[in-house]
């Protein structure tokens, strides 16, 4: 069946995408551990394909304030990726990297923000490398852009840019733990439909 959007994916194709999530999470654990200098464990992530309004609810509600760090995917795959981070995860990173914490988003200064972007960049880069390794397609990611604002508004941006006709979106929910604490980290992966077809073709689960 021709794929026009995520809702057309069959179970084998979804499994292939989950596998990318698994390998990406493994890469991310290694990279994160190296960056913060502590052992990091990552559980097998949950890959969900959701309607945009469902996705916003699943991530904590439209008005929840979060940091969204977005990169564009270029070369072999076109699209976007976004890392969604809440204040407790941000604090964990800041504590490990800079030895500081903040009480609210408003307190984040330039150095904090660049640390948050850097961590997101490392996490997203790990997933992108997994896709690149599995498919043999080169993928570049752009310099990250950050926005701290209402979740619903942030999620709609890559959706509007790359899912022109699609109603669904792919969320990779990772759980990682260090210092004995479990944390959630959500990633949105949004290849445009042509790129999605190329990825699935390379993974051997799609023939046009």
């Amino acid at each position, binding site marked *: 069946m021709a794929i*026009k959007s995520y809702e057309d994916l069959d179970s084998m194709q979804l499994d292939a995408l989950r596998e990318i999530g698994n390998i990406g999470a493994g890469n991310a654990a290694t990279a994160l551990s190296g960056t913060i200098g502590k052992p990091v464990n990552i559980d097998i992530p949950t890959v969900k394909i959701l309607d*945009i*309004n469902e996705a*916003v609810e699943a991530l904590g*509600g*439209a*008005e929840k*304030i979060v940091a*969204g760090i*977005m*990169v*564009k995917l270029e070369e072999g795959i076109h699209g*976007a990726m976004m890392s969604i981070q809440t204040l407790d995860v941000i604090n964990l990173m800041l504590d490990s990297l800079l030895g500081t914490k903040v009480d609210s988003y*408003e307190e984040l200064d330039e150095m904090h923000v660049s640390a948050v972007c850097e961590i997101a960049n490392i996490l997203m880069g790990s997933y992108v490398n997994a896709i690149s390794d599995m498919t043999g397609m080169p993928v570049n990611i*752009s*310099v990250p*852009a*950050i*926005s701290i*604002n*209402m*979740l*619903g*508004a*942030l999620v*709609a*941006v*890559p*959706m*509007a*840019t790359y899912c*022109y*006709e699609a*109603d669904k979106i792919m969320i990779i929910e990772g759980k990682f733990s260090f210092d004995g604490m479990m944390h959630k980290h959500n990633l949105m992966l949004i290849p445009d439909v042509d790129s999605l077809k190329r990825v699935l073709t390379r993974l051997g689960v799609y023939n046009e």
Partner: protein
Amino acid sequence: MSSVATVGIAEMGVVRGEDQLITYALGSCIGVCIYDKNAKIAGMVHIMLPTAPTDGSGKSVCRYADSGVPALVNKMESIGARRGLLTAKIAGGARMFNIPGDSVVGNIGDRNTDAVKKILSDLRIPIVGHDVGQDYARTMSFNACDGMVTIKAFSKGITTW
């Protein structure tokens, strides 16, 4: 008893009398509120993109300005609103991300604003209030009783107009 109906992303809603509509977290998206003050009929649509695909593959009519706004007007007219009396208020169209060297992502909000203004002008519905642009999200509520819009924005407070 008045009630509040929620309008999701790429959805629309129509209420009348004492009821209200609300849509959350408009970023690059635009909330279009249309009002008939005589009939006290209020309609709202949460627009994500300027134009529907020409091949008709866009399933969600309310996602696009050029199909969503006329669909809302038709729905309002079907329950008694009169075209010549309609006025509009719009909010959203922000630039949420600034990716260096990229204009596609950054310009969605502006393109949405332009498309909404054009379609409202084509339909001869005057815009009597707006809060668009900038770089932050807005939650918009709309009261069928008096046609007033209330905007709540992160770290910007609340305004009613």
